[in-house]
């Protein structure tokens, strides 16, 4: 597993470096630290959301409700800030995370215990969660002037040249790496997605693993909901509309197999970074934003084609000469 994934990630990383260098040669401002820091801040939510989505996709699932979850959790955090301005900042963030977690548990419960396909469940909850924003906010939006000062200031704080969302994304990435590589539950996610029947024979409970995956996805969406709302200074029902597709795209570009069981933290981060660069570089290069979608779409297709070719089963070695070569290789 390792050799192959490393090769893929290396290739993607190389494409990124070459691409960034090319853009920098054309527009040196792109390589200014300020711009890079901005890019990372801008992409930090995508990093985390893509990692969370990867965990779900590993189990052969999909979570289309993440953007709606982000918007609803962000709204809850914003409302807490508006109506209880004296609440400590940490609790406001926690309000967003817990809301996200609960929404994720709802997805997980419907999928694991009622056996409804993930795409159907999360398509449904996507609409429900968006609708709930309008209901709880009475159709209104929460503006910057209505949110607390500390609430909005936090995402703009800088430490060692990087903003707090970037540091949070770094922390979350490390947690994901540890979770996926060093814990039984993390290994279980790969097993369930790789071969559900075999996992069952090994005593791994698929329902528990699914609950876990969708809870993680929800909680991360909740955290990102706070960051999004606080950074842009507005909460309303339409924020991050369609963002779930960007998140899934980052996973696919990063080598996460939609068929489940395959994906890595490094690959997914690179996939997200790729989309982040495409989105920030195109304006710098004065390319119309209309091209953004076409370019990221083409990249997704290319990634899928490369994956499909790489996933092809090794052919049987029946010819004696082929067997000889195979033996040398092994």
């Amino acid at each position, binding site marked *: *597993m*390792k*050799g*192959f994934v490393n090769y893929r990630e290396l290739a993607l990383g190389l494409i990124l470096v070459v691409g960034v260098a090319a853009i920098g040669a054309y527009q040196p401002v792109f390589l200014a630290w300020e711009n890079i820091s901005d890019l990372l801040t801008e992409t930090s939510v995508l990093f985390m959301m893509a990692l969370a989505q990867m965990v779900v996709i590993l189990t052969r699932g999909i979570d289309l409700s993440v953007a709606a979850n982000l918007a609803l959790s962000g709204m809850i955090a914003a409302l807490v800030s508006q109506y209880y301005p004296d609440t400590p900042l940490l609790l406001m963030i926690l309000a967003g995370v817990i809301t996200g977690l609960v929404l994720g548990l709802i997805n997980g419960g419907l999928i694991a215990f009622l056996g409804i396909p993930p795409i159907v469940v999360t398509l449904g909850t996507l609409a429900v969660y968006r609708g709930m924003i309008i209901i709880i906010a009475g159709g209104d939006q929460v503006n910057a002037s209505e949110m607390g000062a500390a609430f909005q200031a936090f995402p703009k704080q800088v430490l060692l040249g990087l903003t707090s969302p970037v540091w949070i994304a770094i922390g979350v990435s490390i947690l994901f790496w*540890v979770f996926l*590589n*060093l*814990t*039984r539950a993390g*290994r*279980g996610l*790969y*097993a369930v*997605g*790789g*071969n559900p*029947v*075999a*996992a*069952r*024979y*090994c*005593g*791994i*409970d698929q329902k528990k693993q699914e609950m876990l995956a969708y809870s993680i996805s929800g909680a991360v969406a909740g955290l990102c909901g706070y960051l999004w709302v606080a950074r842009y200074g507005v909460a309303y029902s339409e924020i991050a509309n369609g963002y779930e597709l960007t998140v899934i795209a980052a996973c696919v570009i990063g080598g996460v*197999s939609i068929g489940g*069981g*395959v994906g890595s933290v490094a690959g997914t981060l690179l996939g997200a970074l790729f989309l982040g660069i495409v989105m920030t570089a195109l304006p710098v290069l004065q390319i119309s934003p209309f091209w953004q979608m076409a370019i990221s779409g083409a990249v997704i297709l290319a990634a899928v084609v490369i994956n499909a070719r790489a996933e092809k*089963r*090794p052919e049987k*070695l*029946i010819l004696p000469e082929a067997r000889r070569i195979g033996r040398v*290789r*092994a």
Partner: protein
Amino acid sequence: MSDPILTLSGVSKSFPGVRALHDISLSLQPGRVTAVIGENGAGKSTIVKILTGIYRPDAGEIRVGGEQKHFSSPRDAWAAGIAAIHQETVMFDELSVAENIFTGHMPTGSTRLVDWAEMRKKSAELLKRIDAPIPPEFKLKRLSVAQKHLVEIARALSHEARVVIMDEPTAALSANEIDDLFRIVEQLKAEGRAIVFISHKFDEIFRIADDFVCLRDGEKVGEGPISSVTEAQLVRMMVGRPVDQVFPKRDVPIGEVVLSVKNLSNATEYADVSFDLRRGEILGLYGLVGAGRTEAMQGLFGITPVTRGTVSLDGRQLSIHSPSDAIAAGISYVPEDRQDQGAILSLGIRENVTLANLSKYVRGLFLSRPAEQEATRSLGRRLAVKAANWEQRLGELSGGNQQKVVIAKWLATRPKVIVLDEPTKGIDVGSKAAVHDFIGELAQDGLAVVLISSELPEVMGLADRVIVMKEGRIVDEFKRGAWSAEQIVGAATGAAKEAA
């Protein structure tokens, strides 16, 4: 005797490492039912697949109505008037009965669009001919297995099939449904069609067949009118070879009782399965395909719920509700289909080997890679897994090496009892010997082994004791040295008394 409808002469078929059929000749007469019998793996299904155009024979010829035919697809076989009714119905659950009957040859009007009224009308006529009151517009998934068979027969009639092949059609039918099916078979006979009837059940064969063809290891070992043989003779023909000398059996001292199973039952698949298993003992679990052996062992392992019965290990009663309970207690189950049920191809060798008892590799809070690597290395070497390194993705290994990794996974749990479900199914002769030797080694190491196998030589070569299951129950038990192949097959097919 009239001219045969279909003849096979000198037909052979090989797969890599396996000779499936060798020089088979047979002829099917109009208005007669020919039973094809043989052990699992004797070549019955291969014949069906050649007759229906799924496989092409390596040698030999097929003649239909005297004319030589080359079937390059199932469609050619249909066109030649050969239709098959399969063990598990191969039809479309979400489509209507009429659509299923006319799949591939739906009536069209001058518009070239499907003529639904015509299709329904013809379907109703066909179903009426076989006395099957099934509305043509019903979706197939609403029907019982027996009714689905009737739809398949109607489909065969819609092609004006002259040869109808029935591959274990009664496997999932109740007694009444079997009576109905046989009435239709009689009717097809009366209409002058030739019928190939494949079944394991001797009572059915003697009831419905006119002629028989007996296969063993891909060769024809007997044929003739069914009235010319007895059940005992057929059993002897099926088994045929001397089986005791095939595998050298290791001499292992048998110890105390490890596993004790009492009255294990489930509502529909098996009932009152009871046995004791001792340290160092290999217990063969023999029976025909579908006798409930796998199902009972899956119940034991916690894969499926058990409705009644107890399982004790070392005298302590267990409460097994999931595979993790069974693994924790010291029971391992190596499933039959190791590709689908055992191997996780997207993960590395190490991750596969440690998966069934990951908790053992946790040091402090986290999994310890060195501990995992150590276990993988020692088991990988013991089983002689060929791989570039222990992190290699399982999907990159050969099938035989994948199987070894799956077995390593179960040995890593350090079980006291290991259930091996058809451990040599689909592997070539050379690997088989290695697996057999390894099973002997397991027993020598003090494991108690349950060996589910449909291959009699394997069971008789390895087991200290054989339990025979038939229709979900244990019907007989034999001790090493006090058994004969005829007795065991007799017990499994229900021809016990005549054979003994």
